[in-house]
């Protein structure tokens, strides 16, 4: 059987989250480059997962599904896209068998033959009965993923579930653990494994505290929900980097390709072409907190290459590169990234901006500059204002941040950026003047 890929589901969910409610079935399918039939099938599958996982049923297909996925901030702190990672398909007999094995091992340790008996007795009538070989294969798998372990040295081996995390902790400690996992998954990256663990601990806590407020005391403001979708590729990419392996993938640039510019539809989600087959040597992964996006930075024939992780599909490893050469290229990249606000590797330029303090109350302007201004420095300061200086690669990436301060920020240098700011504020003023 071909390796199951979740590219379609990932693209699908991303489009759903970003454009929630914008498209009808036909438009949606077209933008993903799939048929309406495939669209319907995908949505049915995702609905089934959501329904089984969260026992909630979004009503109709398409638009209604996206509304079902709409995030109600105060309702639940569950990450809404986590169910993607529950999507691996499994035969009914296998999922039942694995659940039965774990259910039995949850109470005490058993040998493989005892477990075979347990399964044979408990298996639903319409499912095929397992044989010893199958059970041994299952146990091997469960041991590999670290869910169970062999105990005792003598044959026949006994197996036990690795439930120490909940068994050895007191109720109060378990609460601390759940909170810590919740906070760290909520505030750090990567977070998918943390969310999966949170899910398990939450269910465990729910068994003793059935009320929601007991298990969901925390909220996280202004999260990028789609960020966890890209973690799907993160570990395979990091693995390739560790092994200095080149990788191959079909890349769909989220930006418009020139050849589509004439088309009268939003080119971003247009998937008419086949994408571009890329082969490249991955060097680093970058997470951009400003937008909640992930990038793969690599070395290809044309030098340093940057890929948005969301455009990567059909990812596979290729041949190994020379480790010395790899280290050289990685060092080169690090040098170039030194002054990148995000990932710009262009020529460094010094930006000087004057920030005006608020006339009274706490200085939230300065607080924010210190919090978000990365390696920039405050070089001059008086009661009215302060001057912030930073060397960055190009001005494109820092510009939106400077602009977000509105009239509290005046760009002094470079003069080109100052002019651009003036021009842009004029345009913005024109939007609202007439109102």
């Amino acid at each position: 059987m071909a390796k199951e890929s979740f590219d379609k589901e990932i693209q699908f969910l991303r489009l759903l989250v970003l454009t929630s409610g914008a498209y009808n079935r036909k438009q949606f399918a077209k933008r993903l480059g799939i048929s309406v039939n495939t669209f319907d099938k995908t949505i049915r599958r995702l609905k089934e997962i959501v329904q089984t996982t969260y026992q909630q049923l979004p009503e109709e297909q398409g638009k209604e599904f996206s509304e079902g996925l709409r995030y109600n901030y105060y309702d639940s702190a569950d990450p809404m896209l986590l169910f993607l990672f529950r999507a691996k398909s499994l035969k009914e007999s296998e999922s039942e068998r694995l659940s039965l094995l774990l259910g039995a091992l949850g109470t005490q340790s058993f040998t493989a033959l005892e477990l075979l008996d347990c399964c044979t007795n408990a298996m639903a009538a319409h499912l095929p009965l397992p044989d010893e070989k199958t059970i041994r294969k299952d146990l091997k798998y469960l041991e590999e993923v670290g869910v169970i372990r062999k105990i005792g040295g003598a044959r026949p081996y006994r197996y036990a579930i690795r439930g120490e995390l909940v068994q050895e902790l007191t109720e109060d400690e378990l609460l601390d653990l759940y909170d810590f996992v919740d906070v760290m998954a909520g505030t750090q990256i990567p977070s998918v494994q943390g969310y999966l663990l949170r899910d398990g601990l939450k269910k465990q806590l729910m068994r003793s505290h059935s009320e929601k407020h007991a298990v969901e005391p925390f909220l996280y403001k202004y999260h990028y929900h789609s960020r966890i979708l890209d973690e799907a590729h993160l570990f395979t990419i990091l693995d390739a980097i560790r092994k200095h392996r080149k990788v191959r993938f079909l890349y769909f640039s989220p930006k418009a390709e020139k050849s589509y510019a004439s088309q009268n539809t939003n080119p971003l989600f247009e998937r008419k072409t086949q994408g571009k087959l890329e082969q490249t040597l991955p060097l680093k992964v970058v997470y951009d907190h400003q937008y909640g996006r992930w990038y793969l930075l690599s070395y290809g024939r044309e030098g340093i290459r940057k890929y948005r992780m969301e455009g990567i599909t059909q990812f596979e490893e290729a041949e190994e590169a020379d480790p010395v050469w790899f280290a050289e290229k990685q060092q080169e990249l690090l040098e170039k990234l030194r002054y990148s606000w995000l990932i710009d590797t262009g020529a460094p330029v010094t930006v000087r901006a004057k920030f005006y303090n608020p006339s009274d109350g706490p200085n939230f302007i300065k607080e924010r500059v210190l919090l978000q201004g990365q390696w920039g420095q405050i070089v001059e300061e008086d009661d009215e204002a302060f001057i912030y200086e930073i060397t960055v690669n190009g001005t494109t990436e820092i510009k939106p941040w400077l602009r977000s301060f509105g009239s509290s920020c005046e760009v002094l240098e470079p003069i080109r950026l100052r002019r651009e700011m003036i021009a842009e504020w004029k345009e913005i003023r024109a939007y609202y003047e007439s109102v």
Partner: protein
Amino acid sequence: MNLFEKIFNYQIISRLDDSGTFMVTAHERAWLKTVLEHPAASEAFTPETLAKLAALLAEDEAMDTGAHLIEKARSREKQVYHPLLRPLRRLIMNRSGIRVTHALKSGQVYSNQLGVPYRLEYSMVKREWYLLWHHIRNRAFMSTKLDNILSVTEQELPLERVSDILTRISETLENRKAEVLVQIIPQYNQEMSRILYALCCFDKEVQYDAQTDTYTVKVCVMGDEREFLLSKLRFLGKRVRVFEGEYVKRRMLEASVKALERYGVVEEVTVMVKDEDALNPAQ
């Protein structure tokens, strides 16, 4: 490490849930072992629990994502845990009342205010924790920075009263929501992904008019979230235009007029420019 392991399959998870079985994989333990190295861990656990966890995870390997993963445009991480999180989360869980002594931005101190705690909220932007609570005498929904709380003690209140208040908070929050319509200027449709990413941290809905190829984003914000929305709108600049939402529109005009004044570009515009409160950026 593959995140799409069959052990995470939804049918398995749901069956285990039915049988009350707790299952944890090596993936999750590796993640836990890694985050336990963060300084926040010492604030989250007692030293005994921390030692216990370290022993339980002794045979597991930590994740080594750090080596090849770079984070950019990250806010300085002022605070991940706060000493008040542990006591407050227990008060929330037990549906207790509280007596809070807290300071305001101005430095003024309010002592022993009676209230009901609702949730603990972390701002990813400011990297700080807040307590959301109901102030009983003022009948007000409050958001107080944990750093500004000088003391908090448990105050017994009848359970029905606490439940009533918590229900009322949910209603209040629902009523506070306002809608702002933001149009993406079609000329910038090519940058759609970036624009939608910037707005995707809000409760929002996108409308698409195929005829004019125009996207409009309906953003749902609470009163105090408007400042953060404004900073995002200024961030996006000319790519978007507020279509509906008088207050936000007025503030965008003020920002542009005042910004141009800073640059010495003054043209006659009939607008009342309100002062600095207009500039309070992100929440």
